[in-house]
C-alpha cells in the first residue's frame, strides 16, 4: 500500500522535492529513486540500459491497477501505475499544456495502457493528448474497457490506439500486446498499425451504456469484423 501512496504524493507535490525526482516501481516491488537525466549526480541509473519494456498503466480502480501491474510484471515489464489521466500526463511531463522539452531519456515510457472510463479525464482524452504531442505520439496506447461497444472501439482506433482490450484483462491479453510491441520494435520501430480488437462475447453487456457516454449504443457489426479480418490477412501476407 505504501508505494502507490508515495507515487501519488510526489506526483501531487513535485515542488516539495529538490530537483525533480520520479518514482519508479522496480520489478520486485522495491522502490528506487531516479532523477531526471539533466540532474544526475552519481546515481548512474538508466532504464534505457535495460531491455525491459516500461509500461505506464492508468486506471482509477485500485483493484484493476493491482491486477494490471501484476500482469505486466509477469510479462517482464517495468510498471508505473497511476490513478488518473492527469497523473499520467504529469508523469510524462505533458501537463499544463507544456511539451516535455527535456526528454526523460532515463525513464522512457514504451507503452501506455489505460482504462477508458475514468472520472476527470477519460482514457480517450488521454489518448488524444498523447497523440497530439510531437514528443509522445509514437508511444503505443492501448485502451481497456469493460464495455464492449463497437463505436467506442472504433473511435479509439481511429484516434490512434494500438489495441483495445475488453475487461476483465487476462494474461493472454497482456502477452499478446507485449509480443506485438516487441515485434514492432524488432522490425525497426516501423509502425504497422495493426489494429486488433478483442471482442468478448458478453451478451449482457451489449445493451448497457457507459456513464461517460450515455448516448452510446452498441451495434453488432459483422461487416466491421470482416473488414478487420481482411486487413489483418493483408498485413500478414506481407510479412515474409
Amino acid at each position, binding site marked *: 500500500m505504501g508505494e502507490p501512496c508515495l507515487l501519488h504524493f510526489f506526483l501531487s507535490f513535485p515542488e516539495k522535492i529538490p530537483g525533480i525526482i520520479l518514482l519508479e516501481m522496480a520489478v520486485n516491488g522495491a522502490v528506487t529513486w531516479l532523477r531526471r537525466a539533466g540532474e544526475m549526480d552519481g546515481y548512474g541509473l538508466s532504464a534505457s540500459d535495460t531491455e525491459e519494456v516500461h509500461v505506464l498503466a492508468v486506471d482509477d*480502480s485500485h483493484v484493476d491497477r493491482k491486477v494490471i501491474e501484476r500482469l505486466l510484471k509477469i510479462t517482464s515489464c517495468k510498471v508505473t501505475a497511476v490513478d488518473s489521466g492527469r497523473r499520467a500526463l504529469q508523469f510524462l511531463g505533458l501537463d499544463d499544456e507544456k511539451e516535455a522539452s527535456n526528454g526523460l531519456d532515463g525513464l522512457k515510457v514504451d507503452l501506455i495502457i489505460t482504462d477508458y472510463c475514468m472520472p476527470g479525464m477519460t482514457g480517450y482524452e488521454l489518448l488524444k493528448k498523447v497523440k497530439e504531442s510531437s514528443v509522445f505520439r509514437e508511444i503505443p496506447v492501448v485502451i481497456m474497457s469493460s464495455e464492449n461497444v463497437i463505436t467506442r472501439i472504433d473511435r479509439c482506433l481511429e484516434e490512434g490506439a494500438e489495441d483495445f482490450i475488453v475487461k476483465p484483462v487476462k494474461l493472454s491479453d497482456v502477452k499478446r500486446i507485449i509480443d506485438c510491441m516487441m515485434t514492432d520494435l524488432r522490425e525497426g520501430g516501423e509502425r504497422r498499425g495493426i489494429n486488433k480488437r478483442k471482442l468478448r462475447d458478453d451478451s449482457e*453487456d451489449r445493451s448497457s451504456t457507459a*456513464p461517460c457516454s450515455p448516448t452510446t449504443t452498441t451495434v453488432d457489426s459483422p461487416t466491421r469484423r470482416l473488414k478487420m479480418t481482411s486487413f489483418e490477412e493483408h498485413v500478414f501476407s506481407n510479412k515474409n
Partner: protein
Amino acid sequence: MDLVQLQRQLVDYRTSLYHEGFLDEQFTQLQELQDENNPDFVVEVVSLYFEDSERLLNELSKALEQQIIDFKRIDAHVHQFKGSSSSIGAQRVQRLCIVFRNYCEAQNVEGCLKCLQQVKHEYSIVKTKLESMFQLERQILNAGGSVPV
C-alpha cells in the same frame, strides 16, 4: 482434521463456489498470477476489492437516501462496483450490477433500492465465502502443507 482432509475440503469448497456461480474464470486467472514470490497476491487483490466495495455500497446507500436522486452518480458507482467485481470474478455481484444499471437508466427509484439490497446481500455472501476459503488455505499452510491449485 488432517492435512489431506483439509486440502480436499478446500478443493471441494472452491469447486462449489464456481458451480454455484459465486466465482467465475477471472478468479482462476488471479490464482494463476500467484506464485512463491507473490504468495499473497489473491488475498491482497480481494482485500482491495472488499475495501472498495464497502466504500461504494456506503456511497450508494447515501445517494439513494437523498431527496433528489442523482441517477448519474449512482450509475457511476454501480459501474465501478461492476468493474471491480468482474476483475476478481465475483460473478453474481457483477450480474446484479448490470440489472442495477438498467434501473438507473430507467430512473426507477424502487428498482434501484431493491437492487441495492440484493447487491449488498450478494456481496456479503461472497465476502463470507472468500474469507472462509482463505481461512482454509491458512490452516493448510499452518499444517505445513501446500495449497492445491
